[in-house]
């Protein structure tokens, strides 16, 4: 008799603490935060400004290491306290997609090139990368602006290009920091639904920091942070 193999979680963030400064100037931005995200799960992270949401997201995104705690992605220990266990930049490139409140596109690259670059950095050929980038743009309804520079796109169009860039490499983790802030309610919901679709189709773990309570039904799990402390919330019916 064989035991069924369980898939590892997309993200296991355990006991994350982040302390800035020391002595009298010490600030604890995040205290013992723990979150488990399954593959294909979409998690919302709520909380007021300054509660530590972005600190948690940058720690899980391997940008800003925690002072203490462990981060495991896809069953592999990546960060143990401040010590990185892998080449973080290379790992980010292959496994993590980011979306921010502001679209954060590279201003001198066209919309399609902004998506292409993420794939080319990951080893995709120019032709293949462009083809997939155009496919994603078409899927997100911005194919007609492929060759426009970010400065020529509306906030919503920029955000959709940023989403396309984040999912282009089919990452196992997608981290989004208030991705719908620049979008109207309808577009915002569309993006949230897109995350859910990608998560379910690709098996990616998605964490979305949001203030938009209108689309909470899209999420599988909801966490809330306050004063650096994290707690799991019951999903509203």
């Amino acid at each position, binding site marked *: 008799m064989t035991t069924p193999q369980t898939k590892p979680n997309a993200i296991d963030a355990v006991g994350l603490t982040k302390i800035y400064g020391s002595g009298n100037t010490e600030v604890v931005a995040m205290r013992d935060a723990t979150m488990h995200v399954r593959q294909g799960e979409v998690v919302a992270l709520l909380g007021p400004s300054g509660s530590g949401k972005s600190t948690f997201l940058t720690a899980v995104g391997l940008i800003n290491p925690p002072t203490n705690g462990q981060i495991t992605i896809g069953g592999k220990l990546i960060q143990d306290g401040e010590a990185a266990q892998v080449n973080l930049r290379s790992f980010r490139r292959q496994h993590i997609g980011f979306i921010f409140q502001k679209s*954060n596109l*590279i201003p001198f690259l066209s919309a399609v090139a902004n998506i292409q670059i993420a794939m080319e950095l990951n080893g995709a050929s120019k032709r293949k990368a462009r083809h997939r980038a155009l496919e994603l743009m078409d899927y997100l309804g911005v194919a007609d602006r492929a060759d426009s520079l970010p400065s020529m796109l509306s906030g919503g169009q920029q955000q959709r290009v940023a989403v396309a860039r984040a999912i282009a490499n089919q990452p196992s983790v997608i981290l989004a920091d208030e991705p719908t802030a620049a979008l109207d309610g309808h577009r915002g919901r569309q993006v949230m639904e897109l995350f859910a679709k990608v998560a379910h189709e690709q098996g990616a773990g998605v964490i979305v920091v949001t203030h938009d309570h209108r689309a909470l039904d899209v999420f599988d799990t909801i966490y809330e942070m306050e004063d650096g402390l994290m707690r799991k919330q019951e999903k509203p019916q």
Partner: protein
Amino acid sequence: MNLATKDIRHNLGRFALTAVGIGMLLMVVMGMGGIYRGVVEDATLLIDSVGADLWIVQRDTRGPFAEISRVPSNLVYRAAAVPGVQSSREFVYHTIQRQRDGKPLRIAVLGLSWPTDRGEWVPLTAGRPLGQAHYEMIVDKTLGMSLGKKITLGKETYTVVGTTSNMISSGGDGLAFFTIADAQAIQFDTPGEAVRLERAARESRGEDFEIGIQQPMILENAFRPTAQLPAVARPQVSAVMVSLLPGADVEQVAETISGWGDVSVFTATGQRELLLKGSVEKVRRQIGLFRVLLTVIAAIIMALILYTLTLDKIHSIALLKLIGAPNTVILGLILQQALILGFVGFVIAYLVGQQLFPKFPRRVILADADLLQLAGIVLAISVLSSLLGIWKAMKVSPNEALS
């Protein structure tokens, strides 16, 4: 994807202006080198063009180019008699300044040993070599005289029968070729009043001596033209040029002539070195120091420009790091922009220089070797000046993309 060219295309106007600025700076560096080459070329042009094997000059002088030299004109016959000598020619060289059309006209006068030397070796752009013993001249185009033009120098009028180009003296003045007799007439031209005064002075000196009273013919001779007086030497020449027979030993002939007590002898190479290690040396050092200074300034300015360009891209660099771009991609972005800036600047410097340098009062010669050397320097400057920007880029944290 080439990020450097995409960024340049996005900021094309600013990049173009920056490249023009760098180009102008490099053009000055290029021009300095060209001016030095021009000075050397002008200084050695005559020595190289005349093609003499030996130069006989006044004893213990470094003439006739580095300093004044005076030798008797009959030295040419003595030199011709030395075994191994094929021919010898007189050489007269001096600079005059006259007024023409209200502007100063400086002419480097060079005497040709007519009829053996009619100036056939002068590279003519129009006209012909000298065709008669007097009143004809060949001029460099910088003197601004065309064929058939007449100019009065001293008491005589000379006609331009040939024109040449790039025949410049070491002082930067255009050369004019005359027969030796005409060159001397121009050099020793004396106003009528001065001649009358000199004759009166001769008579006066004759009366002071007993011999003048005893022999009245001496006093009568004092009124005759100077050239007819056996006691007065003929005008001297600057040097005598010697051409040797094929296979003749230069050292042997030079040793024979240097044994004469009244002259010194130099080979053509020796003359060249006298010029280059003398008057031209200081110019060379001066220009060299300017070049070094300008190169350093160009490097500093390029470094600051590239640093500023990098600062403008800090957010994009942070974003690239955030999405996992390796350092080589970011380093390549800055380094490629530095190299493109250096290359475009160099091309602008060359193209603008080609248009501007011919308008300079002295020759600016862009030698291939100098251009290659400058290209190497620009390459080094580009790499070095990008280091500051690269250092800044390497320090950027991906966190800055979120700020």
